[in-house]
Structure formats: structure tokens, C-alpha cells
């Protein structure tokens, strides 16, 4: 079986023909760069109208008998993290060890808000995975979450000593984003008088 004959490599081309065939790849390289630049912008960063504004006013009942609930007034004094979670949310389970580690370090007070959840299920969730929160509140109606501009659970907010929201992290906490996003910002806020 003979293979197909190949056109000899030295075949002459009409002058100027080659650059014409380079147009597609040139266009593609341009496009590739634009796509690459587009990827550096994180679409998950939703501009929040509340950044650098005071946290909304709220007063939520406690989830657990031995931990207090959470109100706007509790956010003042020192920088804290406010973490929205729910028992029905799988990424909340994933971030539980990260929160537990952060709570054990004692670097920062973490307040939890159980979002649109059955309180009994919320309590079971904390029993099973450990409670990293100093205060845990129930937002059964999800009203406070709306005031915070919550995009989904889990979501974590950094609130400064004056009670203003300084940063929000949509999605689960991971060891990586804890190191790169949360801890440096907290440290900067804690250094401030």
C-alpha cells in the first residue's frame, strides 16, 4: 500500500500568497491575548454597594442556647468576620475546617449568621462540624442577608472597628484565599488605632 504522494516542498508559490495565509493565526493571537486579559478579571467580584459603608442595622436571635445572637451594635469595637452559612450548603461544609482553624488561632472574632435554615438543622450542622463562632444568629427570613447584599452562601464579610463593611468574599473560604485576601486585610485593620 503506497501512501499518498506529498506535494514536493519546493513548489513555487504565487508571490505574496503566504502572508495571506498568516491572517487567521494573526487574528487568533490577538484574540488569545484579549481572552487572557479577560480571564485576569474575576467575574465573581461583584461590586458591592456596601463596601466602606456601615453594616446595615439588624438584630437577630441566637441559634444556640449557650451563644448570644448578633446585632449591628455587636460589630463595633474591633475588626470581626461575619460569615453567612447554612446547613443545606455543601461549600459551607468545605470551609468549616478553615473557619475552625481561624477560630482556634484566636486572631479574630468570627460571627456566624445561619441563612434561611431550619434552626434544628443549623444546630446539628454546628454540632457535627464544630462551632467556630463567638456569636451565632438565625436569619430565617433572609432579610438581613438582603441588607448585606448577600450573593449566596457561604459568604464572608470583614467589618472594621467602626462597624463598616470593608471587604466581602463570595464563596467558600480556603486556606489560599484566607492567606491572600482575609488575613492581610485583617492585620492592616488591627494595626490601625
Amino acid at each position, binding site marked *: *500500500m*503506497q*501512501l*499518498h*504522494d*506529498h*506535494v514536493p516542498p519546493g*513548489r513555487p*508559490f504565487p508571490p505574496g*500568497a*503566504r502572508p495571506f*495565509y*498568516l491572517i*487567521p*493565526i494573526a487574528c*487568533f*493571537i490577538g*484574540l*488569545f491575548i*484579549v*481572552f*487572557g*486579559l*479577560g*480571564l485576569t*478579571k*474575576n*467575574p*465573581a467580584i461583584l461590586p458591592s454597594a456596601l463596601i466602606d459603608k456601615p453594616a446595615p442595622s439588624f438584630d437577630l436571635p441566637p441559634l444556640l442556647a449557650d451563644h448570644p445572637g448578633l446585632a449591628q451594635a455587636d460589630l463595633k469595637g474591633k475588626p470581626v468576620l461575619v460569615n453567612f452559612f447554612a446547613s*443545606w*450548603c*455543601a461549600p459551607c*461544609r*468545605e470551609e468549616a475546617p478553615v473557619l475552625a482553624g481561624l477560630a482556634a488561632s484566636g486572631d479574630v472574632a468570627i460571627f456566624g449568621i445561619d441563612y*434561611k435554615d431550619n434552626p434544628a438543622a443549623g444546630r446539628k450542622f454546628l454540632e*457535627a462540624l464544630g462551632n467556630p463562632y463567638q456569636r451565632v444568629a438565625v436569619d430565617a427570613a*433572609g432579610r438581613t442577608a438582603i441588607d448585606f447584599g448577600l450573593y449566596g452562601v457561604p459568604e464572608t464579610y470583614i467589618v472594621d472597628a467602626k462597624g463598616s463593611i470593608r471587604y466581602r468574599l463570595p464563596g467558600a473560604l480556603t486556606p489560599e484565599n484566607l492567606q491572600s485576601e482575609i488575613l492581610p486585610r485583617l492585620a492592616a485593620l488591627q494595626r490601625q488605632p
Partner: protein
Amino acid sequence: MIIEAGHFALVLALMVALVQVVIPLWGATTGRRVLMDVAEPAALMQFVLVAISFAALLNAYITSDFSVLTVAENSHSTKPMMYKISGLWGNHEGSMLLWVLILTIYGAAVALFGAGLPPAFRARVLSVHAMIGVGFILFILLTSNPFLRISPAPPDGQGMNPVLQDPGLAFHPPFLYLGYVGFSMAFSFAVAALLEGRVDPAWARWVRPWTLLAWCALTAGICLGSFWAYYELGWGGWWAWDPVENASFMPWLSGTALLHSAIVVEKRDTLKSWTIFLALLTFALSLVGTFLVRSGVLTSVHAFASDPERGAFILLLLGLVIGGSLVLYAIRAPILTPTGQFAPVSREGALVLNNLLLATATVTVFLGTLYPLFLDAINGPKVSVGAPYYMATFVPLMVPLLVAMAAGPLLTWKRGDLPGIAARLRVPFGVSVAIMVGTSLMAGGKSALASIGIGLAAWVFLGTMQDLAGRVRLFQGPFSDTLRRLGALPRASWGMTIAHAGVAITLAGMTVSTGWSAEGIQVMKPGDQVVVAGDIWHFDSTAPVSGSNWKGMQAQFSVSDGGARPFTVLTPSRRTYSLQQMTLAKVAIHTNHLANWYVVVGDPQPQGGWIVRIYWHPLAPWIWYGFLIMAAGGAVSLSDRRLRIGAPVRRPVVASGKSHAAA
């Protein structure tokens, strides 16, 4: 355990794909048949392994195994079985596995039915095809593994977006992927041809069934997607120029161009490097479509699978597949010399015009889709490009395309007879102009675009019928002769006639439903009635309803045209999905295949009653019927004798003076 077996099967599939890349290509280069023949069993094995892997995941969805992360995140025990299954591809990880499954199905199909291809060529095709497989299986294993476990397993899953819980969307992705991924075959054939440095009519004939198959599936997929948007999203529209819709439309446009230009290669042995380019472009656009949807670079209502990390991987994959093939194209395409000559007015000329217009239309949609991204890359404002842009750019391009569409098939190859064509098209021209003027007078000149549209639809339909009549010599001889010719007409010719008629039908549906629709939007309580387009809509009552994972209310409307009895009773509903706390309005539609009566119950009002939107859409059903007819035309063409298995044989081409025969 089954899930781990599925994971393992996918890893094995990757190994097999790697073998399939290297060995056959090596064999084809060195001329060793034994090595080339590794391709077929490898392609079959790759398919079997991916199918095992897919079945393992499917099993986890069917049995609601919430220890599997993707199942826990996307399924729920109370979901109806159909949506448990479709939930598999309603999310990123599972949909990528479906993508790869379909890829391997195509590979296995070439291995099974490609016996007529020369061994070296087949080996190259399957090797190139396996390269795509390696890339995407790696993508799944490294960034989107659907087989990950979660511990402890949650008691129940999170369910999926209720908008996706619908039969239309359950079957939309498989069809869309059959189309997208099907163009991978045209791509592999094109790259293999570039590697060999040769494209000839036999090549065009080999690649045609695969392109047709992909095109039919994509047509059906777009049709389903558009119909889903129409009845599920509840705003009465069927196309929104959403980036994700455009992502499926661009490969469709360039794939349509490819189908037409490949005919020129097949019949006239010219337009070769352009056809190759279209084959590369169409698959590139399919990949870009995947990229746009998967990476979230463009935010859209559909972007439920946004993830920049995966985006980076896909970008790399795109760079390798598209960049690599275009470099090969730049090196190899100049040696593809045409042998056929033709005059501008000829069948070839008409097909070149078709290609130019379709390619320009593709670029137009591409720019509109990516313009926001370009702006964003230079830190400009966030914008979105909407319907007005496409009305101003895309629609004018379609007008000459449709005008030429009726005349093109009447032209002969090489040199066409324009005055002769003009004479034959006298009647279609007269009738369509009369329809255009008539509808415009009827409408009082208020919707000029709709009149032009309906006139064009008539023109395309009548021109196509004129062509058919000419082929069978209708009224030019004894009727028995016409019948005999009708029977002897090749399936490919029937396919074209059917598909072109489908275009006319879709066009008529689009323009009439847009230009002459009527709507009534008002707050209504039970007992109220309203008149829309001459029909009396009476809001009879409301009643509670429930399904396995939702509760809601159902309204009942009687529609009558003034007679004693209503001609239809419609029951739109509002469903609240308890898990997601999401309320969806379910549309109710009555159709008589000429018009749709459409009602949707919106938000309840504080003072009582609901916002009720009522639409009357004349000819709207034709939009989707036309699309299905187009797909059917493709299928008929696919059954043509010359494309059947084993039929295409590379013949010696005398005209070119080269020896092409594989001796």
C-alpha cells in the same frame, strides 16, 4: 466504589487516547500499517472507557448518591427521575463528561464506519481526534472532576436551578453538544488533510456526512434552546442575542458555510484552502462557545458554570488546538491548488457569495458577542450589546443571502445563464413582490421590515419550489415523466430543497410573529376579562397545585373568539420550589400551528390580583417547525447514496495531472 471505578475508567481512557495520538500518527508517517491499525481499536476502547465512566456518574445521579460532590450540589432526592438524569449535564463537571462522551462516540463511529478511508488518512484523522480527547479528558481530571467525594455526605442534595427543570432543557445540551463536538470530526479531517498536504473531491465527500450530522444536531439543539427560552423564560421572545445563544449560533453559521463550500470542493475541486479554513474555524467557534460559557469571561443569564481557573485551562487548550491548527494551516494551505475554473455567475459563484455573507455574518455576531470583552480588556466600561446592534448589522447581511438563495440552485456549474434564471424566476419574483406590497398595505406601512421579511420568505420558498419543478420538468412533458424524475432525484437534492424550504418557513414565522403580534399586560383577578387581538380572555379561577419538589397556584383562562364556547382553556401556573425558595411562572400556550396563544401569570399585586401577560403570536410555531424541517433536510441529505458507508472512493483525478491514486 462504582464512582471510583468511573474515575479510574476515565484515567484509563486518557492513557488509551495518548496511545491513539502517538502510534497511528507514527505509523502513518513511517508507512507501517500495523501501527496505523492501532487507531480503530484504540478509538473503540476510548469510547467504552468513557462510557463506563459516564455510566458510573449516571448511576450516582439516579441513586441519589450524595457522597459524590457534584450530585450533592446539583441533585435532590425529590426531583423527578428525568431531571435526576438531566441533572448530570445541568452542571459544569457533568456536562464536560457528556462532551467527552460524545467526542468518543464520533471517534468510535469513524473507527467503525471509516473502512472506505485510506488507512494512512484514517490513522491521521483518529490521531488528531484523540489529541482533542486528551486535552478534554485532562481538563476534566485536573480541573473539573465529577467523581470527587464529599465527607460527611449531606443528608440531601441542593437541587438544581428550577429554571433548568424542564424537558426542553433536559434534551437541549445533548443535541447542542452533538453539534459542537461533531464539528471536531470535520476539524480532524481538515488537519489530517493539511498533514497530508492534499484536499480533493474524495476528501470533501468523506467529510460531508460528519459535517452534516453535526449540523443537523446543532440545528435541532438551537431549535430546542430557542423554544425553551420562548416558553420557559416567560417574556414571549425566542431569541435574545445572549452570548450563550450566540455561542451556539456562530458555529452554526460557519458550519452552514462549510456545508456549502465543501460541495464546491466535491464537484469542482476548487475553494480548497477556504473549505479547510472553515472546517478549522467552525470547530474553533465551537470551542470558543464552550470557553465563553465555561469560563464566565462574559457574564450572562446562562453563566452558571463560571470559574476563571477552568477558564485558564480552556484558554490553554484553545491556544493549542486553534493556534496549532492555524499555524499548520499557514504552512500547508498555500500548497492546496485549485484545478477548477469558474465564472462569477455560476453555481460556484453563488456558493462563494453564500460563503462570504455567512462568514461576514459570523464575524458580525462574533464582534457583537465579544465587544464587551474587548472593552473590558482595555478597562473600558461594562456594556452589553443587544438586539439593535444585530438588527443593524446581521439582518442586512441576511437579505442578499436570502435573495441569492433562491437563484443559486438554479445556476449551472462553471458558467450560469443569468437571463435564463431571471426568466425562470419571473413568477416567484412577481408573487413575492405582490405579497410584500400587499402585506405592507394591509399593515398600513407600519412594519416595513416585516413586509420585506415575509416577501423574502415567499421568494425563497417559491424559488426553491421553482428549482424543484425545473428538476422534475413539471408541466414540461408528460406527468409520468415528472413522477419518474421525482423518484430519481438524488436524496442530496431533496435535502437541499427541504432545508431551503425550512429557511423560508422559519423566516416567515420570525417576521410575522414579530411584526403582527399583539399583547396585553394588565393586573387581573379571577372574573376579569380582556380582549387581545380580537379574542376574549376570561380569567376563570385559581387553584392550588403541587409537584414532587414544588408547590404553587394554577390559574385558568378561557379564550373565545366571541362565540358561545371558548376555543381553548389555558392553565398557566406559578410554582415555588421549596428547596431554592424560587418562584417560577409557568407559561401556558395554545397553538393551532398557525398562531400561538400565550399567557403567563406574573407577580401578585398588593391590592390583589396578578400581573397577567397575554400574547398572540401569529405564525410563531413556524419558527421552530422551519428549524426542524432544516434539520430534517440535513438528515435526508445524509441518507444520500454517495455518502453511504464505503461508497466514497478516492478516484484518480485526471484533470489535475497528478497521480492521486492510492495504489
